[in-house]
């Protein structure tokens, strides 16, 4: 799977047994994962390349959700709306103004960022539950709004696009090109996200989540950080939305139903909501598990989503990434100081 080796990001990196330092192991793991991800499109069919592309796109969106909900503690049940904003921005730019596809991703991300910041402002006044309520309502209202502005959005039919062709200097075919494009953006977003979360800013975000009053007392500008967390989270999810529009070559209101937002929450929880690599596990989960389950019945993927949500909630609230980190830490008792963020906000 793409990037599974990146679990080393969490905390198991610092084994003192080997000659390599902790950072060395970590980078070795990441490099191995990247190498595997680079080779993968040549080993599987085009259709699977397309599925893996979508899994990576979901991973980018989930990282945005993890940053906001997992690290900063602001519950969003409406991230599908930002995915929609990204997707529609990209689609409208291409469809109406003939903008080349590679120039539509940045505007899509920036518009999502702006709208995220705007939504982050009222969110400052809303505590946990009420923010969940507002974002859930946003998720319900999104398809209707998209249908309403039909002169822009193409109404219920949506907008049909053409898949971007691979550039002449990299002739690998459309599916593989989209795969590598998504992989490149995934790496950039994850690298930026990791740097953000492992820095002062990341610690401030976690502090706001765990104890807002202490955070303020420590001099953290809560309002600024929370609004920016909303913006950056929306930015990531918006980029993912734009990529999804390119990869599927189609946007329509019904692809952005409340269930998209719910599947993001499922992916986050299953992967590990307050972890970085958890986003990759989550992306793989929400891309592949429903496909397997839909062989049983139309409703089966969702039934399985629901059961997984409850099962993870009760049995392993840290998600796959968090649980793996804990298990691997146990194997190396010498290492103390568990990463606070990896323990997660659910316990």
């Amino acid at each position, binding site marked *: 799977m793409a990037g599974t080796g990146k679990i080393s990001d969490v905390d198991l990196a610092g084994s003192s047994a080997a000659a390599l330092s902790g950072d060395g192991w970590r980078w070795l793991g990441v490099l191995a994962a990247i190498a595997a991800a680079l080779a993968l499109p040549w080993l599987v069919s085009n259709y699977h390349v397309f599925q893996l592309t979508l899994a990576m796109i979901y991973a980018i969106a989930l990282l945005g959700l993890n940053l906001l909900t997992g690290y900063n503690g602001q519950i969003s049940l409406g991230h599908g709306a930002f995915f929609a904003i990204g997707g529609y921005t990209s689609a409208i730019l291409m469809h109406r103004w003939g903008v080349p596809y590679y120039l539509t991703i940045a505007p899509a991300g920036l518009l999502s960022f702006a709208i995220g910041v705007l939504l982050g402002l009222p969110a400052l006044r809303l505590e946990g539950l009420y923010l969940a309520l507002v974002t859930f*309502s946003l998720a*319900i209202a999104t398809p209707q709004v998209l249908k309403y502005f039909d002169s822009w959005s193409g109404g219920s039919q949506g907008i049909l696009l053409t898949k971007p062709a691979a550039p002449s200097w990299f002739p690998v075919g459309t599916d593989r090109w989209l795969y590598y494009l998504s992989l490149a953006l995934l790496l950039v977003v994850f690298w930026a996200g990791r740097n953000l979360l492992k820095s002062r800013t990341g610690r401030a975000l976690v502090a706001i989540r765990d104890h807002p009053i202490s955070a303020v007392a420590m001099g953290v500008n809560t309002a600024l950080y929370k609004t920016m967390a909303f913006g950056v989270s929306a930015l990531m999810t918006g980029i993912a939305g734009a990529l999804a529009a390119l990869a599927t070559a189609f946007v329509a209101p019904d692809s952005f139903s*409340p269930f998209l937002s719910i599947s993001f*929450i499922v992916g986050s929880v299953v992967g590990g909501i307050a972890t970085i690599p958890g986003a990759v596990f989550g992306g793989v989960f929400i891309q592949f598990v429903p496909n397997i389950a839909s062989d049983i019945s*139309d409703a089966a993927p969702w039934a399985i989503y*629901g059961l997984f949500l*409850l099962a993870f909630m009760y049995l392993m609230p840290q998600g796959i990434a968090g649980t793996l980190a804990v298990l691997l830490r146990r194997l190396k008792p010498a290492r103390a100081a568990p990463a606070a963020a990896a323990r997660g906000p*659910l316990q």
Partner: protein
Amino acid sequence: MGQLLQQVLSGLATGAVYASLALALVMIHQATESVNFAQGEMAMFSTYIAWMFVQAGVPFWIAFVLTVAISFLGGVLIERILIRPVESAPVLSQVIVFIGLLVIFNSTAGWIFTYTVQEFPSPFGDTPLLGDMITSSELGVIGVTLIVLALLYVFFRFTPLGFAMRAAAQNPESARLVGIRVGWMLAIGWGLAAAVGAVAGIMVAPVLFLDPNMMSGVLLYAFAAALLGGISSPGGAVVGGLVVGVLENLVGTYLIATELKLTVALAVIIIILVVKPSGLFGTVMVKRV
């Protein structure tokens, strides 16, 4: 003028349904300080149970009573089995459990009853009354809601069990000290909320038709209603529901396109929460740090 009055009256009928669901939300919020995101889907599932009875030839009102009773039991069971473990967990965990419930109810309904839209019988017929101002089904919905409200009022105001439940919600520690089994009171609260939700679902199904996604819009209006009235005030939820129902109709008829109705509800929710989080009748929450 005639049209205006007609819109107001039919708004009151849908508003009564929103009021019921909002009341279910408020009941659970009072007991546990959380909002049950699965309330709408639970009501939808109850409605399918009623539909099943009616399809099997059971007379409507017997099906109605059976469904409400089954929903009550279901609500109690859900609280005991699924909600209890996360009773004192962080908000995020609770929200995720509610979302899990929502998804499970929705998909189970889709699995058992398929996603085909079904017609649901109205027990009140569809005769126009009062010179075409209101139909008998609208009047029936308002009537049933008022009866449910009156029953709940009497229950919470005059019965020992109602008192015990209010005590458990207001001050669990003291209630426990005087011998009230707080855990069971919460479970009964969930059961009652599920039963009231079932009534709302059965009342709205003839209008919206029956399908697994029928309640998502209604839930949004119920959120708006509960917040408008003040989420800590049961009476407020009812007033809020009626106001939202009438507003929805008037705004939809005179101001903007019907396709934006849900967006209006969203805007109402955001404005209330930002400007006056306690709603019209709620108590202002004071937090000690």
